[in-house]
């Protein structure tokens, strides 16, 4: 049966901001709610595409440890917060911003997100920026699911169907209150995706050649990892010839 109503928010990208060792000053009341995570060793599946001898290779796992405590926003930037940046001239207007202020700011590109971080930094006198993919993975903890579940075998039809079913099953978290991870972060694995600052790279593991790095494409995290050009505001337009994504 078809539902009679549709959630306000479509599958779109929004931003999370990380601030490394922020200096909290007099404008602290406007400062985002931050979670500070103590450094710990964690296992990080690297971002990018990896080949060995020209054939797809497993993603290398690295043991990593943040060099210092990581301060990261507890939840996504909201539509109301983003609108304040627009009104202040720090951000461009975006078409898909929800009317409901408490909704995450959606349909923002990496460029929009970066502009927001720069504006917030100026306004609050502290350094805010997008998290790197490693930082996002560390903060997401048990919710970090970088690898899209693969159908067994190499049947392109079965792989496409499995990916489609997975996407179709995603739901937007209407309220972050019930889905915090063990670090107290909300909305990590809903139908929305979050920008990271990490550039796309393709690594040939055998040849010893330098990786191909393209910073016009950034790593996007959420229910699984993907890569999108930095100017894309609506992930439906992220290069998929299928067109409109599964409805959320």
């Amino acid at each position, binding site marked *: 049966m078809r539902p009679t109503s549709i959630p306000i928010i479509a599958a779109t990208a929004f931003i999370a901001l990380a601030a490394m060792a922020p200096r909290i000053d007099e404008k602290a009341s406007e400062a985002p709610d931050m979670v500070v995570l103590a450094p710990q060793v964690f296992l990080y599946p690297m971002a990018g595409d990896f080949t060995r001898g020209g054939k797809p290779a497993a993603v290398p796992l690295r043991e990593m440890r943040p060099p210092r405590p990581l301060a990261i926003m507890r939840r996504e930037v909201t539509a109301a917060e983003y609108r304040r940046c627009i009104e202040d001239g720090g951000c461009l207007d975006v078409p898909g911003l929800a009317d409901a202020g408490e909704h995450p700011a959606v349909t923002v590109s990496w460029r929009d997100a970066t502009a927001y971080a720069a504006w917030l930094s100026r306004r609050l006198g502290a350094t805010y920026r997008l998290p790197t993919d490693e930082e996002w993975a560390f903060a997401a903890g048990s919710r970090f699911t970088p690898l899209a579940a693969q159908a067994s075998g190499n049947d392109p039809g079965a792989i496409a169907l499995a990916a489609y079913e997975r996407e179709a099953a995603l739901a937007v978290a209407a309220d972050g209150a019930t889905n915090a991870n063990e670090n107290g972060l909300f909305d990590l694995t809903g139908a929305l995706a979050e920008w990271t600052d990490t550039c796309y790279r393709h690594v040939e593991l055998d040849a010893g050649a330098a990786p191909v790095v393209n910073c016009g494409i950034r790593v996007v995290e959420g229910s699984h990892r993907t890569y999108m050009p930095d100017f894309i505001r609506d992930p439906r337009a992220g290069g998929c010839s299928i067109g409109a994504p599964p*409805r959320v």
Partner: protein
Amino acid sequence: MPRLFEPSMDVRRIATRLAPLAALAAWALAIPAFADPLDLPRERVTLVAPPFVHAHEQATTAGPKIMEFRLVAEEKPMVIDAAGTTVQAMTFNGSIPGPLMVVHEGDYVELTLVNPASNTMAHNIDFHASTGALGGGTLTLVNPGEEAVLRFKATRAGVFIYHCAPGGPMIPFHVVSGMNGAIMVLPREGLSDGQGHALHYDRVYYVGEQDFYVPRDDKGHYKTYKAPADAFNDTEKAMRSLVPTHVVFEGRVGALTGKDALTAKVGETVLIVHSEANRDSRPHLIGGHGDYVWETGKFANPPEKDLETWFIRGGSAGAALYTFRQPGIYAYLTHNLIEAVELGATAHFKVEGEWNNDLMTQVKPPSPIAAEGSSTALAPSRAPVRY
């Protein structure tokens, strides 16, 4: 099945002029030899909401029937995109488009059109498949609280639009508010390739394309209204731009994607009936084709073969037959890609089955570009390499 004789006006006129014999003539008209269409077997059809189609025979050896349908004009707010944009929709049976009716050539379509008292507008129905009275429109105009019954003979095989046409600017207003659908009149012997070979389908889907013209406020946000009449003035201005704000299948963006995607199996033959009551469209199946396509939708014409994209003229329906040969996800969309991707006219097929490597193989997965004489080379990068 004996050929039926219908009482003609000539017979009645003769009866009138021969007054002394009027009683005898009346008696003569009443005897079974002058079989009235009402004596035909009747079949009451329960309609189902698109994209599905009520059960029916593709070919039939039975004689003509009176096929009874009931459409209820339903005015109600409907959400047409993921942002929650809401229009005061006017519908047949509550869905956009209205349900697909299926009969056979030579059958009689007997439609009861109901306009519940809770509605605010007059409605009627114009069947492109019918002959006379503006497609039945002048015989079916019903005010809230009324119903009318129309019977017409399905004399031409094909897929045809039906739509509300209550006069003047109300005609486009009702049509772009959702009040349209289609009827499929199958040849009694079923579909054929035009060269004597029968064609069959394992599934049939009805895709109704709808263009919406939703007015915006000063800030560019879509406006909402309490009733269709409240929406009319603004909507008429938006309609006159001829630029739709939404072009969708089944009444809303994403109605045929995700959990509601259409399904099929490799080896199955699917008939896709596509209608657009107001505006041109260009259906295309990404990753597949139209094996047999009745682009203009009329089955007395031989279908075209192996099409990549076909054309649905505004105000018409077409039909495409395709046998899926490869599993996976297909997009069925209008190949004005702006309308498909930006405005919503995209559906998906989920097709299960075994991959055919002969038809397609990934010879080399995405990898660094191999320059001559070396195994890898740097691809262009928009920013300095920092690794």
